[in-house]
């Protein structure tokens, strides 16, 4: 596993929750949004095992419904527990982000 994919593994879950929070999303759209935000090298399919896990943990809920453009698709939305998990992720991320940035900055100079 490359260093990048190792780093990304834990973060991706938070990113997915965050995107689903913006509006109910289906798999393909979700992977396109991740890429649009710059995570292009995440293989598109890698979101599906994560989506299954998030459903199992009851953080998101999927529902087959008709899309605006036609076919029935499985749309995901956050559950109450999902909202809490996302808030916790954001909190933990903030706690990590600044110290790590500072350490790296010191190292570079």
């Amino acid at each position, binding site marked *: 596993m490359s260093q990048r994919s190792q780093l990304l593994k834990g973060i991706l879950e938070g990113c997915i929750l965050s995107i689903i929070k913006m509006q109910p999303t289906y798999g393909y759209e979700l992977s396109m949004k991740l890429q649009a935000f710059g995570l292009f090298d995440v293989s*598109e399919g890698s979101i*599906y095992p994560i989506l299954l896990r998030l459903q199992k943990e009851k953080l998101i809920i999927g529902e087959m419904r008709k899309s605006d453009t036609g076919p029935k698709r*499985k749309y995901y939305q956050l559950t109450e527990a999902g909202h809490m998990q996302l808030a916790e992720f954001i909190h933990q991320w903030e706690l990590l982000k600044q110290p790590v940035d500072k350490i790296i900055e010191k190292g570079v100079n």
Partner: protein
Amino acid sequence: MNSKEIVQINNDKRKMLTAENLAYYEDMLVYIRLNNVNKSEQQTEEVLLELLEHLLLAQTEGKTAKDIFGNDLKEYCNEVIEEIPGEKTNDIVKFLSFVIIQFLAIISLCHGFIGFGLHYFFDLGAGSMTFQLGSGIIIIVGYLILLYLFVKVILQWVKRTSFKEKKAKKWVEFLQVWIISMVFIGLFILIPIVVPDFGKTISLPILTFAVVGIILYLVSFILNKKYRITN
């Protein structure tokens, strides 16, 4: 939407894949379905449809299954299977009881009607059947174990043929399945011969088996309707 409806959509949509993507996708589909023992059928079919939808949309951009799911499709499928939640044990028990009852019904029906027909129309065999209760039970249990092994072996065989770059020739595959089937049919015939006689002797008119078969079949039919086991 229940899993059967999702399977139907999957069957229709799959036709829109290119030949190359269809080959990849069908390998994944077979592998995931075969490995979903103890897994929720509903969740399995939902994720299979999502993967198909994704592949169809990506296909319009000229992508292949390997671009989307990575180069090791088998490994990818294992990751997906790992995350599919388990089926309730209750459903598995229901399904197994259904299979066993229906299997016994078919054996009993065949035995009853063929035995009856041979006796009354061709004067072959006896109008009643005498058997030992102990041996009878052992034979039935042996049949059920054999049926289980047969299903296992066939599933294993199908699984082995997934994700092969080079597909085996049709006639080779046919021959393999034929040999497996012959071995099992041989064992089915062998079991009553090798099981020794013991237990209480019972004598029943051959038609009793047909009646028992019909009753068991009705029971399996009602169970299926009530609990929607196969639909």
